[in-house]
């Protein structure tokens, strides 16, 4: 539907509906925030700020907390408690508990049946809904854009602003249409789409923009797949990425704890069906990729933009004309201890990590488990499977997926960010190579000196079995 005859994008509609005060020459727009997600790592200084000023949390009923980043994923003790060995982490978790209690914010503590990665639990509980504005002190808040929410990461000062006022000062970003046409082939997944997009535009290619992912391949994805794509928008420099709502979206939300019910559900559906970008609305930029030309992707370097088709050769710095890019590539290959022109297929690995807010949902685990069924993790490999939330863990266990992983020789752990961020005891040792389903391959991201190849859960599982980087399509016979 057009407003005053102007054709609007999905982003325009959500942005416009949340303006408390319009952007002017003097100040950015003031945007109302519908849902604020908080966790233990980026909130303590924000709570201190409002406490020092004697302020309250304006809308604790629109705020939700969970513990995820600094939490261990090691087994529960005989009392059913997950012990926190690290004193600093324990203090941070205690501080978070006290802050949430003091200000009346609902919070899922470590080990609670609803605890998990902040970007897994929002959608899981039906809190993430189309047309909302959602923020969190975490750059992967872009995940929630899969539901047509305008969702983006903020810093700790801004966490304080939202706690105190439920609003944020924001300059209006530009828009970029990211069209993924055609259909994905067998063994190629949502993760491969987003790694291909970032390889194409580069790690800063989306700076100042909000992405809208469009096209047949996006429409064909499950909500979990769309979340994987939107999750890594920030790795392309865009603070947010969105997908228009459709029946797949509505089916996912319906019946969840916080989903509208009865007449409210019908009213919500009518609102949500108005959200898709108007035919002919203009984007500031547009790119198109063909899904049927994609194969599994893998990164070779030290940022997510350094990615390639899994059967390609590592690029050579001497072929790079831009001096800055050449230096960056040389530095990356030195850190990764890889040679220009080398194939990654067959590269021996030490660790496989399946988890993180990118790929730890039930469909990710089902896909990996189906692949691991009847197979064994190579002796030289440590494989960790870390469900994104306690609810994902429970669901996976009810389907017997944990038994499949354990029988294959993988570790089945408690929910959390785990080895994606390596601040909770789960980390690579210096020099180790990992195939990881997480989102960042920065130097030291998964542990000081660790080397990360980002890939899909299928590629990760295949590589775990082979003990080396492997194209899962070569092992897919017999898999539906």
């Amino acid at each position, binding site marked *: 539907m057009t407003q005053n005859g102007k054709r609007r994008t999905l982003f325009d509609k959500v942005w416009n*509906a949340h303006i*408390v*005060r319009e952007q002017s020459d003097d100040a*950015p727009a*003031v945007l*109302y925030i*519908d849902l604020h997600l908080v966790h233990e*790592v*980026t909130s*303590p*200084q924000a709570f*201190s700020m409002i406490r020092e*000023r004697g302020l309250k949390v*304006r809308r604790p*009923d*629109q*705020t*939700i907390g969970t513990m995820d*980043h*600094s939490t261990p994923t090691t087994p529960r003790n005989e009392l059913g408690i997950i012990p926190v060995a690290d004193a*600093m*982490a324990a203090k*941070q978790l205690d*501080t978070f508990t006290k802050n949430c209690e003091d200000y009346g914010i*609902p919070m899922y503590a470590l080990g609670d049946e609803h605890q998990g990665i902040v970007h897994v639990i929002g959608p899981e509980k039906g809190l993430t*809904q189309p*047309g909302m504005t959602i923020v969190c002190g*975490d*750059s992967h808040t872009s995940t929630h854009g899969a539901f047509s929410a305008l969702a983006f*990461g*903020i*810093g700790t*000062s*801004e966490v304080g602003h939202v706690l105190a*006022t*439920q*609003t944020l*000062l924001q300059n209006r*970003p530009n828009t970029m249409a990211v069209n993924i046409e055609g259909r994905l082939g067998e063994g190629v997944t949502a993760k491969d789409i987003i790694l291909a997009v970032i390889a194409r535009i580069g*790690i*800063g290619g989306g*700076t100042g923009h909000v992405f809208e992912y469009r096209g047949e391949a996006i429409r064909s994805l499950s909500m979990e797949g769309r979340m994987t794509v939107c999750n890594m928008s*920030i*790795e392309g*420099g865009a603070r947010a990425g969105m997908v228009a709502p459709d029946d797949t979206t509505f089916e996912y939300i319906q019946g969840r704890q*916080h989903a509208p019910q009865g007449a409210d559900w019908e009213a919500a559906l009518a609102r949500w069906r108005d959200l898709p970008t108007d035919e002919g609305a203009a984007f500031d930029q547009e790119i198109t990729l063909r899904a049927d030309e994609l194969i599994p992707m893998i990164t070779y370097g030290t*940022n997510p*933009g350094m990615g390639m088709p899994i059967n390609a050769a590592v690029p050579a710095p001497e072929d790079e004309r831009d001096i*800055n890019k050449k*230096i*960056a590539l040389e530095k990356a290959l030195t850190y990764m201890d890889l040679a220009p022109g080398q194939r990654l297929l067959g590269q021996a690995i030490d660790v496989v990590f399946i988890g993180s807010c990118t790929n730890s949902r039930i469909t990710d685990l089902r896909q990996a488990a189906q692949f691991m069924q009847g197979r064994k993790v190579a002796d030289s490999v440590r494989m960790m499977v870390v469900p994104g939330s306690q609810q994902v863990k429970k669901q996976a266990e009810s389907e017997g997926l944990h038994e499949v992983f354990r029988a294959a020789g993988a570790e089945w752990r408690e929910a959390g960010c785990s080895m994606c*961020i*390596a*601040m909770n005891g789960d980390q690579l040792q*210096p020099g180790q190579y990992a195939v990881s389903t997480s989102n960042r391959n*920065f130097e*030291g*991201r998964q542990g*000081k*000196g660790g080397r990360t190849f980002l890939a899909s859960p299928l590629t990760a599982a295949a590589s775990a079995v082979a003990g080396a980087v492997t194209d899962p399509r070569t092992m897919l016979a017999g898999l539906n």
Partner: protein
Amino acid sequence: MEKVSRIQGSIVAIPVNDIDTDQIIPARFLKVTEKDGLGKAAFCDWRYLEDGETPNPEFVLNRPEYHGASVLIAGNNFGCGSSREHAPWALLGAGFKAVISTDFADIFRNNSLKNGLLPIIVDSETQQQLFSLAEEDPSASVSVDVEEQTLTLPDGRTVTFPLDGFAKYCLLNGVDQLGYLLALDDEVREFESENPQRVATTA
């Protein structure tokens, strides 16, 4: 926040593109509940050898001639990755007052401005010139005038840089944005009365 109107300081260059916030401060230092004391952790994995304590003599910030530098010249797309505000806290703690690059990641830029760390955008020619100057003459310094939005280079040339008007007001007056937002309480109430809550409660 302290007022920031002029910055005068010597420069040091890290001519690397896409320096992410995990390099500026690795995640293992994020278990703190305060902002202070993070200067030691800035660029930690580049600054220290494998033991995490012995300064790496090769790393530019450890070279004695660059001690005291307060303006960092960096490669393109500085501050990409994680939203951690610990990145500007660590840079400020390490003595930096401004970072100069061709562009900055959005969240890092926002976070820096809220803490009085000035992100200065220049063209790539100026950036390359500053890389060379910093390498050739460790005593080279620049000056920044926030009001005029100008950067004066060691050779006396002056370039202008973009700065959001509101951020500039906050820097010059040493005020943060929260006061502005708190003053809008009536408008927020009005918005809330016209727009029913999407989720009744998160509990």
